[in-house]
């Protein structure tokens, strides 16, 4: 009997009702054959099942191994993540280390050179030839000034008058001179050829009576009214070569107006901060034989004075800025690429020295107001900290057991309030009368004149009394209506310190220049515009603009002149930016305040020695023969 074949396909059994419980088969053997086939198949199934079970077991083992491998992989991944985190932490620690390194760098002195300090309120401070290239320490100092008199847009021949105290010192910003009080009304006349805005400052009231006219001019470069303090948000140090090719942009400048002129074949600089009444020399070097020129501008960037133009053969040109010059711009009859790739050098003086590359370093500072009270106590920014030593303007509203009295020129008290509890630990400064400034919202700064007898006619001054006198106010007036709100800025008993407010490290350079500026860097995500972070300091002008690669962080510069600053200065748009772009930019904000007498400390180079008679500096080098110095070579440092 041949083996039956188990059906490969699914077999469908059909019950046949024959009323017997027999297997229905057409032949007696067919049923057996079918049973045998079924047994064989079942055996196959068994084998298959066993194989499958083995496979499953193997698979389970493999799975287990895989699981183990996966576990190992996960552990490895975790380890990698830990290591990555460690790396990131380390990286961040490196960032912290950078800050430490910055401080270390600023303070390092590998050659044991003397550290020398320059104190100056000027926006632009020059370092000498013997300044070493090394860490530069900048300390921003507080200043608070309230003009006694102001003259806004005074016409030619117009005057400003003020009540003077005999022998007090006054600063006249129009003539940049110190006046001595006559005890009577004094007058400042606009005897210049143009309308002018200027201020008069009572120096004694501010504890500044020993300052020179130049020092005061540095402190008050702007016309202003009301109380002004010092706020610096960037210190910038530049090397001897003042020409930064990154300041170049395509275009020309119209000679007569000083305004931009479209010209794709020429290039010009942005506004470069310039010293007034100062000689400059510019050297074109390898630039093509084309003409170039310089335009000067005042502090408001209005064109002034002469246009210096040099013909195509002039490789070295000199010019001297006027007394009112605050900015210059240079233009070239060359393409931007030509000038960019040449060695233009701009420096102070009349003699062009050997070429050095442009160098610069920055320190950005978060905006903190630095005040000063008349006894010389100042808020400062130093070592990356804001040290607040004076109060913010504080409204007087205290119980009375000790009085500040505001008197008129007749010696009558018009107002008294307790102030001692503001700083009980520092009674001596209260007694010295110089530890605070008193402001009236109606009358401005109320000066301390050392007793009512010195109070100018029709003026007011404050004194300190332990007992009160009768208050005498104009009929129908109350202290509130007459003086408005009275506020004090006073010397704090304990300074308030805010850490980590600076970023970047400053370097000094031989014959370098330091700029105290009002600039910020900022970063944002562009949407319909680029919005600034510090909305209290809106954009005056953009300085630089970059698109940031979102992965690598690479910076791609964009043309600043193509940016459109919104009214109010809180944002700008640029055709080269689209929504989602990350934008890094620097900008100047509007500032019309005063300058503090900042201190810059640099290393005095051992290798540049000042001549004792001719004012020049020299480097020196010994000639050594057979271990003996047989001579010296001296070279002038230019």
């Amino acid at each position, binding site marked *: 009997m041949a083996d039956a074949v188990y059906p490969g396909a699914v077999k469908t059994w059909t019950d046949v009702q024959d009323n017997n419980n027999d297997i229905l088969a057409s032949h007696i053997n067919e049923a057996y054959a079918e049973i045998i086939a079924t047994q064989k198949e079942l055996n196959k199934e068994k084998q298959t099942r066993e194989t499958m079970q083995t496979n499953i077991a193997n698979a389970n083992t493999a799975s287990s191994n895989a699981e183990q491998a996966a576990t190992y992989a996960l552990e490895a991944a975790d380890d990698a993540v830990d290591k990555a985190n460690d790396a990131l932490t380390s990286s961040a620690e490196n*960032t912290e280390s950078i800050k430490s390194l910055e401080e270390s760098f600023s303070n390092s002195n590998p050659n044991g050179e003397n550290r020398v300090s320059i104190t100056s309120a000027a926006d632009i401070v020059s370092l000498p030839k013997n300044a070493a290239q090394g860490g530069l320490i900048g300390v921003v100092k507080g200043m608070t000034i309230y003009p006694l008199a102001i003259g806004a847009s005074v016409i030619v021949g117009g005057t400003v008058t003020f009540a003077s105290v005999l022998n007090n010192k006054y600063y006249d910003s129009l003539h940049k001179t110190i006046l001595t009080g006559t005890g009577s009304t004094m007058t400042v006349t606009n005897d210049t050829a143009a309308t002018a805005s200027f201020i008069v400052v009572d120096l004694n009231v501010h504890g500044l009576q020993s300052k020179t006219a130049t020092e005061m001019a540095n402190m008050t470069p702007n016309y202003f009214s009301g109380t002004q303090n010092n706020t610096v948000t960037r210190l910038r140090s530049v090397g001897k070569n003042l020409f930064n090719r990154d300041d170049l942009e395509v275009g020309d400048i119209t000679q007569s107006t000083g305004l931009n002129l479209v010209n794709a074949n020429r290039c010009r600089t942005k506004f470069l901060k310039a010293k007034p009444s100062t000689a400059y020399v510019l050297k074109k070097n390898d630039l093509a034989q084309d003409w170039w020129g310089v335009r000067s501008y005042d502090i408001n960037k209005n064109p002034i004075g002469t246009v210096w133009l040099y013909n195509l053969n002039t490789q070295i040109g000199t010019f001297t800025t006027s007394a009112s010059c605050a900015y210059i711009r240079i233009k070239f009859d060359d393409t931007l690429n030509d000038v960019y790739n040449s060695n233009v050098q701009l420096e102070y003086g009349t003699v062009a020295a050997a070429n050095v590359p442009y160098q610069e370093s920055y320190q950005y500072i978060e905006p903190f107001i630095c005040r000063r009270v008349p006894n010389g106590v100042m808020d400062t920014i130093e070592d990356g900290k804001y040290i607040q030593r004076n109060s913010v303007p504080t409204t007087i509203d205290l119980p009375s057991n000790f009085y500040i009295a505001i008197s008129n020129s007749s010696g009558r008290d018009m107002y008294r309030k307790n102030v001692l509890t503001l700083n009980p630990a520092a009674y001596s400064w209260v007694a010295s009368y110089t530890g605070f400034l008193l402001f009236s919202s109606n009358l401005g700064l109320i000066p301390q004149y050392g007793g009512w007898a010195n109070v100018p006619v029709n003026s007011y001054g404050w004194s300190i009394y332990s007992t009160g006198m009768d208050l005498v106010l104009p009929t129908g007036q109350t202290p509130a209506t007459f003086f408005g709100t009275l506020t004090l800025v006073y010397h704090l008993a304990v300074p308030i310190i805010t850490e980590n407010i600076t970023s970047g490290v400053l370097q000094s350079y031989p014959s370098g220049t330091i700029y105290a500026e009002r600039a910020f860097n900022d970063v944002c995500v562009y949407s319909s515009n680029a919005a600034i972070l510090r909305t209290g300091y809106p954009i005056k002008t953009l300085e630089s603009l970059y698109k940031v690669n979102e992965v690598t962080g690479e910076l791609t510069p964009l043309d600043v002149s193509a940016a459109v600053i919104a009214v109010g200065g809180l944002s700008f748009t640029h055709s080269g930016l689209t929504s989602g772009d990350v934008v890094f930019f620097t900008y100047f904000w509007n500032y019309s305040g005063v300058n503090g007498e900042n201190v810059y400390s640099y290393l005095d180079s051992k290798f540049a020695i000042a001549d004792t008679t001719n004012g020049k500096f020299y480097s020196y080098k010994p000639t050594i023969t057979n271990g003996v110095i047989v001579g010296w070579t001296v070279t002038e440092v230019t």
Partner: protein
Amino acid sequence: MTELLINAFVAAIEGGTMTIDNVPEVYRGQVQELLKDNEGE
């Protein structure tokens, strides 16, 4: 320049004008750690 950029990111995030997701990957770790440090102060 890099340190200035990183500090600008930190200031922008603390000021609420950016999030950490906007910071380029290369600087993200450093910015995060500086943010943590500033929180701890």
